């Protein structure tokens, strides 16, 4: 088990380096990227900073190494556009809000999606089941900008219940997190229903019933435990969606987070920020994958002893 974890961790390192390398090489192709003695007009102070930071007169692999060193020491360089702020400053300020948004969205998804899936599986082909699956399918298909717009239109404007934008109080946080959580909710409902239905057909569930155990125990202990394991592993792609979705949701609800800032930075050609954010988001996803794999190893006794 420990060997499994260690192996997984070790493999993460080259992958992170590779992702940074790819991003780095990509960035160098862009006009106005931070790694060239630049043709564009960048404020002198920033230019000095850049040269110092990224060793712009050295060959590209030295620049790359320098950047990696920066990442490891959590120093992502200066912003190309905002004179007196570094990428770190921006991240420190905006990132926590995005994390909050993401966590709430995930919370909604677990709170509503998982129980819906469980109940749907326990009453297959019932009205609840059809309803839940219909809701789930629609949830997947509706673009979140539509959901956001409709929610704002009705809840904020027509009924005046909640504010339309910002991130100050819980009232501000409700609509954006709900919007972002819709797709994960739909995903969980479907996934949990699927795994539970499958598990309910398993031989060992039949054995449990044959033992005369109360249905509550059969479901609660035998079925759920085995059904929820795949749900854990599904958390990783969900993170990818939450990041993607946050770009839109933060944009519409004017939440001052990383998603919104990424788009702003691209439009403003602040590629130093773009680079930093891309690397940051990638690392988060990779670490999340690692965490999920480890968790899976803990939850399923069979993997603990598996060889490579």
């Amino acid at each position, binding site marked *: 088990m420990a060997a499994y974890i260690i192996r997984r961790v070790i493999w993460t390192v080259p992958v992170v380096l590779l992702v940074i390398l790819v991003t780095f090489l990509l960035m160098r192709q862009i006009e106005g990227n931070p790694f060239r003695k630049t043709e564009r007009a960048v404020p002198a102070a920033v230019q000095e900073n850049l040269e110092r930071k990224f060793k712009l007169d050295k060959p590209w692999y030295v620049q790359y190494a320098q950047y990696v060193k920066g990442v490891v020491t959590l120093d992502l360089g200066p912003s190309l556009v905002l004179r007196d702020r570094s990428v770190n400053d921006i991240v420190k300020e905006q990132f926590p809000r995005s994390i909050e948004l993401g966590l709430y969205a995930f919370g909604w998804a677990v709170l509503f999606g998982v129980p819906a899936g469980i109940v749907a599986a326990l009453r297959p082909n019932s009205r609840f089941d059809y309803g839940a699956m219909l809701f789930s399918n629609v949830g997947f298909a509706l*673009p979140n900008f539509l959901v956001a717009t409709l929610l704002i239109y009705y809840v904020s404007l027509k009924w005046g219940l909640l504010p339309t934008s910002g991130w100050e109080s819980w009232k501000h946080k409700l609509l954006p997190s709900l919007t972002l959580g819709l797709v994960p909710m739909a995903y969980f409902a479907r996934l949990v229903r699927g795994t539970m*239905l499958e598990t309910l057909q398993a031989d060992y569930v039949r054995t449990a019933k044959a033992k005369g155990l109360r249905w509550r125990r059969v479901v609660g202990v035998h079925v759920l435990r085995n059904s929820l394991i795949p749900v854990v592993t599904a958390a990783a792609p969900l993170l990818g969606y939450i990041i*993607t979705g946050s770009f839109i949701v933060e944009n519409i609800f004017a939440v001052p987070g990383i998603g919104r800032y990424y788009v702003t930075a691209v439009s403003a050609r602040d590629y130093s920020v773009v680079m930093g954010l891309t690397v940051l988001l990638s690392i988060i996803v990779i670490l999340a994958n690692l965490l999920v794999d480890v968790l899976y190893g803990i939850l399923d006794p069979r993997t603990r002893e598996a060889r490579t």
Partner: protein
Amino acid sequence: MSAAPLPIPAGVSGVSAGAPIRQSSLWQDAWRRYLRNRGAVLAGGIFLLIVGYCIIAPIVSPHDPNRVHFPDAYQGPSWSHPFGTDQFGRDLFTRTALGGRISIGIGFGATLAILAIGVVYGAVSGFVGGKLDNAMMRFLDALYGLPYLPFAILALAIIGTVNFWTMVVALSIASWFITARVVRGQILTLKENDYVRAAHAVGLRSYAILSRHLLPNTLGILVITIFLELPGVILGEAFLSFLGLGINPPDASWGSMAQDGRDAYRAHPHLIVIPSLAIATLVLCANFVADGLRDALDPRTRET
């Protein structure tokens, strides 16, 4: 116990009541199963309907989709304008069809590109096997779940311009991981499947095995994958365009139309609702079709 062998009985075959179950080929079976799924059939029909609408409507429409005529602006749905008009007085019914051509086109283009990349990667990994396969898969594993949007945005920034083809490229580069893994998994299963070994044992050559056994199965999976990837790509294009990083005027896609409609949604919601619903409907149908295909092609899926 009798020592003499039993006589061959009369009437072994052809007793009508109680006759054994009939057989049919894999494809016929699958098609029949698919047809039984009314939801999937309906979805497939709507899907084709939408595609047809996008192709035909601009050709037969009496309105010029680019003609700016402010007095007509912001009209709601009516007989002459089934979807209403936009802020420039352009007919939305026609423009939605045009936008559909671009959105669906990018969707299919990127999906096919994803398939191509995925098939190559997966095939190489699956067939070569061993250490290379290991490394390639570890690589994929670690990249699993990386959000495509930032990378698609980056790719577009590098390419410089944004048009139909660059969108196809950007979206496919950012989203091929899952398909690659599916293809490789499929190839591995098939390579080591018992019936491939049986075919070898009977003396079939590799080519025959490939064409008669591997390909039909893989084709099924690939078709399903198309309908699974399509929604993601279409939504991806919509997101990019909505954020202003995608398709630009005078071209329009559903995403960019939604962005256009965003400012005026308070007073004229149909500008954003219509293209969004178009996206949603197409995505929904693709999902149902994918499910239907999956159930139809996998004989082991139970019917609850």
